[in-house]
């Protein structure tokens, strides 16, 4: 690999690149916590209500039957609370575990096996490409790439739910059913709850006033979803979607870009230089160049660096080559400039000092 990152450099890159990687699953955890609290509070208040009713009845010499039926009511509400609490905890646990998996994956950047570090680096690039593709709205590509690279994306399911809702809103119910069959058959755990809820929407017209279905169809829910996907799936209809991928790419292109990549006659293009390659050349044009405070000369003939071991020599036509290369192309004490084909005497080459 041309670019060699040390372990500490990888660590530094983590700090600037991985905020979205962790923040997004965290926001899901937060959201699930709030939902769980709401559920528990609600069921708890139901329990309190039936218990209050029982207490009231008891103070007025009731018949056994009515007490028994009230007790049944208490059992029912207690069971509901137990069930709801268990489901909520499971959903919270799931999203906390996703956060943990993300962290564990990030920790793998500092393995001592170069093969595993390389694999991590490759996955890193794939991860950020997936995020970028999601931002652009290229969902199918993103999902497929994620699968092929073995990346776990927490977005896919929520995306599918939202697409389902959109289909209902546009009254494309048959499409919605097909969509559900295709994407929701594998749902389990906390996801199953959400699936049940949105499937109920099929029974109601899209201008329903019945909440929670009304809430789901509310355009404000799109806004909420966009906020939630702030870093992963920020689909703006205007321009401007700076994913970590594009920012990294811009910085990288700038660090490589030199004036030689843009010489008009194209004589200085190097097929190995990324900025000289077709599409990146156009992309890198408006970007700043690399800052070079120290000279480095590379011989056009051999690709070797020109330094005190291979001093730079200037031919009368102004072109500079390494001493070793001139020796190697010398024939009968003459050299032919590879770029202009002019012939000079070997002795005409002058040493230049670039410090």
């Amino acid at each position: 690999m041309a670019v060699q990152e040390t372990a500490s450099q990888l660590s530094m890159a983590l700090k600037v690149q991985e905020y979205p990687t962790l923040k997004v699953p965290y926001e899901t955890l937060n959201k699930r916590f709030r939902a769980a609290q709401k559920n528990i509070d609600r069921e708890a208040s139901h329990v309190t209500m039936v218990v209050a009713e029982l207490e009231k009845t008891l103070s007025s010499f009731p018949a056994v039957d009515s007490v028994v039926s009230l007790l049944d009511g208490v059992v029912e509400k207690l069971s509901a609370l137990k069930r709801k609490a268990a489901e909520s905890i499971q959903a919270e646990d799931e999203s906390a575990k996703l956060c943990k998996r993300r962290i564990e994956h990030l920790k793998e950047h500092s393995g001592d096996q170069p093969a595993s570090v390389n694999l991590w680096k490759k996955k890193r690039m794939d991860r950020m490409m997936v995020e970028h593709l999601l931002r652009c709205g290229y969902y199918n590509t993103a999902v497929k790439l994620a699968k092929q690279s073995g990346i776990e994306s927490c977005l896919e399911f929520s995306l599918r739910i939202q697409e389902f809702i959109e289909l209902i809103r546009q009254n494309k119910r048959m499409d919605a059913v097909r969509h559900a069959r295709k994407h929701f058959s594998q749902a389990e755990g906390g996801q199953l709850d959400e699936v049940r809820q949105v499937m109920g929407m099929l029974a109601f017209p899209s201008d329903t006033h019945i909440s929670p279905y009304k809430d789901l169809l509310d355009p404000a829910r799109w806004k909420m979803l966009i906020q939630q996907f702030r870093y992963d799936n920020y689909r703006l209809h205007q321009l401007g979607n700076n994913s970590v991928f594009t920012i990294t790419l811009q910085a990288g292109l700038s660090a490589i870009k030199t004036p030689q990549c843009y010489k008009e006659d194209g004589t200085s293009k190097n097929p190995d230089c990324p900025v000289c390659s077709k599409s990146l050349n156009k992309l890198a044009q408006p970007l700043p160049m690399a800052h070079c405070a120290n000279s480095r000369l590379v011989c056009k003939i051999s690709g070797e660096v020109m330094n005190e071991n291979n001093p730079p020599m200037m031919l009368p036509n102004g072109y500079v080559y390494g001493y070793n290369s001139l020796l190697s192309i010398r024939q009968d004490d003459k050299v032919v400039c590879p770029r202009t084909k002019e012939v000079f005497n070997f002795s005409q080459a002058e040493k230049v000092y670039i410090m």
Partner: protein
Amino acid sequence: MEQCLCVERELEKVLHRFVTYGHQSEERLDELLRSVCDIRAQLVAFGVQDADLSVLSQTMAQCCKNIKETVQMLASRHKDIHGSVSKVGKAIDRNFDAEISAVVAETVWDTPERQKYLSETIVEHLYRQGMLSVAEDLCQESGVVIDMSMKQPFLELNRILEALRMQDLRPALEWAVTNRQRLLDLNSSLEFKLHRLYFISLLSGGIGNQMQALQYARHFQPFASQHQRDIQILMGSLVYLRHGIENSPYRSLLETNQWAEICNIFTRDACALLGLSVESPLSVSFASGCMALPVLMNIKQVIEQRQCSGVWTHKDELPIEIDLGKKCWYHSVFACPILRQQTSESNPPMKLICGHVISRDALNKLTNAGKTGSLLRARLSQVEQTRDIPQTFDAEQRIEGETQTRTAPDRSLSEV
């Protein structure tokens, strides 16, 4: 690493609290359910006898109180976990940088045209990696159209590499034979190496393959002059075929990393033939960005602290040098030793008669400032002690290309 560990610590705490809460709520609720069911059973059993009812009444009243308290407690215990959850968020905020777009010019790629180039680059990269169906999907979703002539080489490259990974040398050999002349022009020994590897794979099949191996050795003939030694070694190994090559002095022939190596050699030669870089330009640029970003973020912070934000205008050059390593020296760069700036078309490198090269701007400064001129002259002459920078210079020549320098123009220095 420390950043990850920080967040992980808080997460572990949260996970632990969820588990504890889960157990606790289940236990308590089960208890409550049991006692209510108990009471109900008793009630049904005893029928309508007042005395029992009054005892039961007390129990029921107690039970109701219990239920209310427990349920209240469960709701508020869950609320308490919120503190731990938000600590995770705070740990993330503290250890990772939320805003990094300030180090680049944010909107510079925001035109549909540039987005298209970006998608094109990604598609090319995907073809290179052999992820053909993902590339097709992206073409479809982004509307990018890639010429078949551009796709074709990668499709073929990947086909051959796939086969090589399965230790099937035939597609690679076919390709090498078809491109024989061009490979020889490149001084590539790919074809020979492929034959050699095939021969070795026959050898590892044991004594039964002896005839086959001998017959295959005919393929070495065209390479006899260039690879004489190698061929001798290969043929020599036949002696040990009966007793097993792995026990002979030729056991190094059986090393398994040769297969990985042939993939690399093939990739390198094929890319050279096609005029392509061996590595995906997108991979290299991205990796270089991973190194550049932290450096840029640092300098940005320093600039902000010192309140000299005019220093970095995003326009022409990055504010700081980023060391990517020698393998990334794709082009020559000349930086004037005096002004420490890169030279350009408008500020080209100039060679003085003593052989030193400085930028034209530096040269102008030198000739315009008398006193400074002599100090600088002393510095430049450090290698050639006896030569002064002359008062007259040679005539100008037009600059062309990389690392060409002009010889400085005729000028007389009146002050010197």
